[in-house]
């Protein structure tokens, strides 16, 4: 049993994924220790260690684009700041449309992205064929492409932030589950864990797929739903595919990692809840194989090496939940990223840290605040939940 170093912390972060670690790192940099990060599993056990490494700035709403653009800048400078390589390869995200209707939808996104000052392009079949070697003729009527989007290798980001946070005195307790949140005088006063209870005025819920459980254990009703998404990797190949390719019709996404593997998944009926664990299904393997073989027929001769799955933490409107919960002062959300937490972590964690430090946020509360779910009418949504 892991023993905790103290009985009292300034902040307890639940979840040692990329968001929790980044938040702890930023708080420690601001001198706001002592900080404890607890995680029920091992380092990288959750979605931070299970994602495809995509980082994109093409979104439907300006608010998400701004967060994403800031994250891209942070990941570009990651090696200098943290001393490890992410091999962040900015060779673009290519969204593919198979019909004019899909293309019209991508154009709308393209216009928002361009308005935000990013050089997104609408591309035709000729350009697509150059970007994706061996793509099936007629596989797309067109698409959009943003060259500064890219893919990175997720694990080193975890190691880099973990080591930096620990060097600043952050305590990371692995294999320790947060069991509940204690309150006194209407605000957070402590956190119960399997390694004992600790006193703290602030708790950050960065528990990914388990964030709904953590909020509910604190007595807060939240609409977060964990959905299980599957993913696979092929045998590694020499450099073959540069951009991340995303198909609008079925949500197929695939990119080639620095390790040479093609990694990707697609949208299908995703089971909800964390209780059944993270198995792989024959249905996914077959659908994904068909999707890859229709996109780039020569890939049919390539082997699938392994498949796995992990949890998206979905919200009804597609925006993450960032900031202090007005119902329980001291309880800060850093969740609901719907499978895009890794790519938004560097920028989102700044806002979470600001929330803990009591600083003013530049985020639109109508989009990101946990209070938005108690509004009588639904607000705006971020629907480009592909890839």
């Amino acid at each position: 049993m892991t023993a905790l170093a103290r009985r009292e912390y300034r902040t307890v972060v639940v979840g040692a994924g990329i968001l929790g670690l980044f938040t702890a790192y930023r708080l420690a940099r601001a001198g706001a220790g002592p900080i404890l990060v607890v995680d029920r599993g091992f380092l990288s056990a959750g979605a931070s260690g299970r994602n495809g490494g995509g980082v994109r700035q093409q979104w439907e709403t300006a608010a998400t684009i701004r967060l994403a653009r800031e994250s891209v800048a942070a990941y570009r400078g990651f090696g200098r700041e943290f001393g490890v390589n992410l091999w962040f390869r900015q060779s673009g995200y290519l969204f593919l449309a198979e019909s004019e209707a899909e293309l019209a939808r991508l154009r709308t996104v393209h216009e928002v992205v361009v308005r935000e000052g990013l050089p997104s392009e609408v591309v035709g079949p000729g350009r697509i064929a150059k970007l994706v070697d061996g793509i099936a003729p007629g596989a797309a009527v067109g698409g959009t492409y943003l060259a500064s989007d890219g893919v990175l290798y997720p694990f080193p980001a975890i190691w880099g932030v973990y080591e930096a946070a620990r060097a600043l005195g952050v305590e990371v307790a692995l294999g320790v589950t947060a069991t509940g949140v204690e309150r006194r005088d209407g605000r957070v006063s402590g956190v119960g864990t399997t390694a004992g209870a600790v006193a703290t005025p602030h708790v950050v819920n960065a528990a990914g797929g388990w964030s709904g459980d953590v909020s509910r254990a604190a007595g807060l009703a939240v609409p977060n739903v964990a959905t299980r998404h599957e993913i696979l990797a092929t045998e590694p190949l020499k450099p073959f595919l540069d951009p991340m390719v995303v198909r609008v019709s079925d949500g197929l996404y695939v990119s080639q990692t620095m390790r040479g593997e093609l990694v990707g998944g697609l949208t299908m009926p995703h089971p909800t809840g964390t209780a059944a664990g993270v198995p792989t299904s024959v249905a996914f393997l077959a659908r994904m194989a068909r999707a890859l073989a229709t996109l780039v027929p020569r890939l049919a001769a390539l082997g699938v090496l392994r498949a796995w799955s992990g949890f998206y933490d979905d919200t009804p409107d597609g925006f993450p939940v960032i900031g202090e919960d007005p119902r329980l002062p001291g309880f800060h959300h850093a969740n609901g990223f719907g499978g895009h937490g890794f790519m938004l972590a560097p920028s989102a964690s700044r806002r979470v840290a600001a929330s803990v430090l009591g600083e003013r946020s530049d985020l639109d509360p109508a989009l990101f605040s946990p209070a938005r779910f108690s509004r009588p009418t639904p607000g705006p949504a971020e629907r480009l939940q592909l890839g």
Partner: protein
Amino acid sequence: MPEPRPVRFRYDGREAIARPGETLLGALARRELPLLQRSIRYHRPRAPFCGIGHCTGCLLRVNGRPNVRACRYVPHDGDVALSENAWPSVRFDLQGAFDGLFPRGIDTLRGFRRPAVATRLYQRVVRRLAGYGRAPDPDAARSLEGPALRREVDVLVIGGGASGRAAAEHAARAGRRTLLLDRALTAEPVPGAEVVAATTVAVLPPPSAVGFTALAVTEPAAPLTVTARSVVAAPGTYDGALLFGGNDRPGVVSADAALQLSAPDRPAPFRRAIVFGGGARAQEVVERLDGAVVAIVAPGAIPPELVAAASERGIPLYPRSLIRTTNGRRRLRSVELAARGGGRRFALAADTLVLAHRRLPHGQLFFQAGARMVWRGGPGAYFPEIDPHGATTVPGLYAVGPAAGVVRERSAESGRRAVAALLGAPTPGPGLPLEPAEGPHELEGYYRELLRGPRPGRWVACPCEDVLLEEIADAHRRGYRGLEVVKRYSGVGTGLCQGRYCLPDTILLLALLEGRSPPEVGYVTQRPPVVPVPIAALARAAVPPEAPP
């Protein structure tokens, strides 16, 4: 019937001939073990190691398809096979200079960061260090077409060894619809049961009353989807690897490979072989290789039967010895040994080192299906937890034979007992004797002693990904604990063999480094498929209807 005639194919531009039914590797390994590959990072010369379709030592590009395992592929007339990942040739690969240029390894995690303007150039270089082959040719999938198969049975038996065959016979005799899947390229019939030569790549536990779903693939790529009420898994065992300096040098082979390549009807590609191991498996190798064995080396004592087999043949014995390093340029020329307890060091000339010291269970299917696994200290491996009838913790899934830890002599009996239990007529009395659970594995002490000494040469902890022992030690130094994290940190066990050959010893090494017992170091989630499956096969696989939740 006309006499089957030899098959003519080309390998790296030369004409080659295979006997009917012979594998590509068999045809290329007539006189000596062929160099077919270069390692992924350091471009060290590589030859086949495992002989059973898992390691990267025999990957060839065949008819435009990369990563074909020569040890599992039976060639056809006109096939074109090429070595990849080498330039200008696999024998003289200029990138082999990387091995000497980076004596401390290539650190892609923390190196290559300065100057920042070179980032893109570094990226291009490092990206090229990944992957064994180029993308498939446009028409490479044509040979992979074939029907998709679907079966619904009462009892699915996986593995055609003694325990699996006994289980299938027993189930068929009881009138159950029985299917036996075996990975061998040809399968012997079992009365009353259907037998298909196919590799089972996934067994997924029942979400409902529908039962198990298993996915298998026949050579080269016909998918077979099976739904079964019960599964009796008898996947058997394989020969493990060993860590020492130059452990990846061509000529170091597993006992599986040595036995495969010295089948009675063919000349063996070994002249001077050292056999490492002090048990029944070592004896099997000695008897098969016979005159080619020049020494028997064992980590501990050598039992009387093996002593007798050696003295009959005049083979010298080296009990209680460490293998420190191998020497040779492209191939093994000699093996450096040291007597345990700080004894003398000496070298023996050899062209082959056969590792026959450790049989490991094929546990992947059990892990995948969600069965609880237990560490057995004697054999030093994880086995499925079973009751006296072989039932695992997943209802309806039985483990039998050596992969369940049952002693080899009682294999067939374990298969029959499992079927009796699933038929509702369990055999009374206690279960069959299992391999001992208690006590440390003998390699723990072996490695403790070995790693105290100097470590000359490359110690390749994970040959598939060229991960060095030093990188595992580095992960430990930086505070990473447990196999799951060290695997992700260092890349050990993430290659094509999915950790079969590196993780068992990594567990022992981490146990030593962390000062914990091997089960505390943990294990890694086994991810389907059990072996790589062509996308063409998965794309055609029948999907059983989703069970209602």
